[in-house]
């Protein structure tokens, strides 16, 4: 369809069927399924009376048309309850304009007073979160390149040395041991955490997040916490790196290093703590030797090696050593003494 016709056909009728998408589980936040000729999406309903009265109306078919090139809109069979309104909306917001005027926004923006009733929104997709993190790292890199305070293209050269009191920590064996001790502490801390009851909740969320919400777990909080914790650990390692090199450039903010970290983990084996550590060591070792064999083309060989591993051993190199059962692990054991003798081994 050419663009001109499309513009004229703003009243294209998109038959939207909103049906209850509760596939056998109860959730803390009600989700609905919206299907139309262009596909299906799920949306999370807001926690208000208007959304609840919409839920009771389901399933419902609404004829929708485009409006202001920012929203699709149509009339509900009957009005919804009136609740507090707001003027701003974002992409994916489900709203109510007059009491039976249903709107789905596909842009961010504002409406005049008295505003709209928020009925719900499309939850951010995991892929979007992952891509968003990567693109934002690119954005930050570009910004840093243009910011003279952090040295622009040249980065920050000659960082002061890491000090403890009057003691100056120079690179060399001492710095190595400092990094090793920190690695051991992080490893032990995470090992305790992943095997705690908290770790059990994370394992549950990884398998069936909806079911976990039905138990009463606020899964967003858990995911948010783990995301922040991962950021904290990456921050510590970045700090160590900067002191070790005595220099940081904008390149370290970009997607290249972020991707490299993901490759370390995939190579060694995700789902374990030891996997990424092994992966980091091996990838760097391979890079070192490959670069001596083939000075210009070694990244291609490394890339092929990683590809082979990820295709044939999705569990990474550590998958050769531990079974899937051991990778998942057991969580809720009080002490070894109360375990049955036939109980299996904990993950490596």
């Amino acid at each position, binding site marked *: 369809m050419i663009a001109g016709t499309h513009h004229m056909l703003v009243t294209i009728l998109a038959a939207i069927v909103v049906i209850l998408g509760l596939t056998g589980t*109860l959730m803390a936040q009600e989700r609905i399924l919206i299907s139309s000729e262009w596909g299906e999406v799920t949306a999370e309903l807001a926690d208000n009376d208007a959304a*609840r009265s919409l*839920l009771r109306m389901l399933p419902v078919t609404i004829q929708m048309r485009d409006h202001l090139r920012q929203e699709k809109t149509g009339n509900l069979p009957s009005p919804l309850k009136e609740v507090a309104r707001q003027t701003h909306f974002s992409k994916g917001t489900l709203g109510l304009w007059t009491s039976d005027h249903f709107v789905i926004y596909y842009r961010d923006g504002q409406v005049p007073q008295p505003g709209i009733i928020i009925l719900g929104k499309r939850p951010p997709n995991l892929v979007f979160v992952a891509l968003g993190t990567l693109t934002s790292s690119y954005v930050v890199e570009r910004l840093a390149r243009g910011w003279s305070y952090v040295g622009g293209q040249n980065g920050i050269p000659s960082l002061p040395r890491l000090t403890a009191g009057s003691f100056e920590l120079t690179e060399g064996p001492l710095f190595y041991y400092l990094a090793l001790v920190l690695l051991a502490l992080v490893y032990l801390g995470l090992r305790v955490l992943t095997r705690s*009851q908290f770790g059990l909740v994370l394992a549950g969320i990884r398998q069936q997040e909806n079911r976990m919400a*039905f138990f*009463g777990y606020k899964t967003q909080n858990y995911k948010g916490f783990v995301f922040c914790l991962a950021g904290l650990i990456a921050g510590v390692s970045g700090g160590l790196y900067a002191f070790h090199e005595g220099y940081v450039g904008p390149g370290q903010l970009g997607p290249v290093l972020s991707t490299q970290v993901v490759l370390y983990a995939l190579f060694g084996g995700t789902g374990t703590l030891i996997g990424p550590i092994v992966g980091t060591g091996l990838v760097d070792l391979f890079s070192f030797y490959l670069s001596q064999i083939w000075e210009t083309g070694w990244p291609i060989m490394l890339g092929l090696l990683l590809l082979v591993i990820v295709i044939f051993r999705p569990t990474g190199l550590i998958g050769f050593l531990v079974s899937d059962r051991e990778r998942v692990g057991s969580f*809720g054991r009080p002490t070894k003494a109360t375990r049955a003798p036939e*109980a299996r081994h904990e993950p490596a």
Partner: protein
Amino acid sequence: MPLLEAKRISKIYGALTALDKADLIVHDQEFHGLIGPNGSGKTTLLKCVAGAEFPTAGTIAVAGRDVTNAMPPERSRAGLSIKFQITSVLPQLSVYDNVLLALQAQDSIFGLMLSRSRRALHEKTMGLLARFRLDNRRDELAGVLSHGQQQWLEIAMALAREPKLLLLDEPTAGMSPQERRATGELLAPIKQTCSMLIVEHDLDFIKDICDSLTVLDQGQVVASGPILEVQNSARVKEVYLSHG
């Protein structure tokens, strides 16, 4: 005061009337069966009680508290717990860990990080597992259990929250006759602590375990009351036997 009182519940999907002014009352320490032919609205009524669907009209109260418009977590706090027809145990976790997840759901994130309730909940977990004959399989993955055992595990997880009323949607669906009998034996002792509303196809199972019965046909209540009374009502025989 009845534990569950659903009054004149209607649920209309477009042109289809799934429920038409259905009443349902479950008393304390009572096992109540809900039967009817396919499409009679029994699962819809159960979902309305659980909060998975909202009725088009009517009211639902649990222990005198109106929950008609309450979202599932609020209903859960009012004392409802549900086990759906489709089993949704976490297949990649051990049987033990599945039950522990259900038990520790009320703990704070901080408490869970320190594994504070691990010891205290061990006894409870083992108790529930033993009650449902799963204690010798506690280290196996929930996904490798037989269908019947997964159903039991689900019931154990639903009971972990110490509900006042447990809602069971076809607990014996897909079970062998032996497993059916065993399920009846396993459920019987629960009566001391909790009531139950059971949707079932299998009339014999209902007869064995339930005290009272509601029969639905085409969205309407045909009969309701003590099991012997309902069973012998001519209208029920007509509805149930004619549909097989």
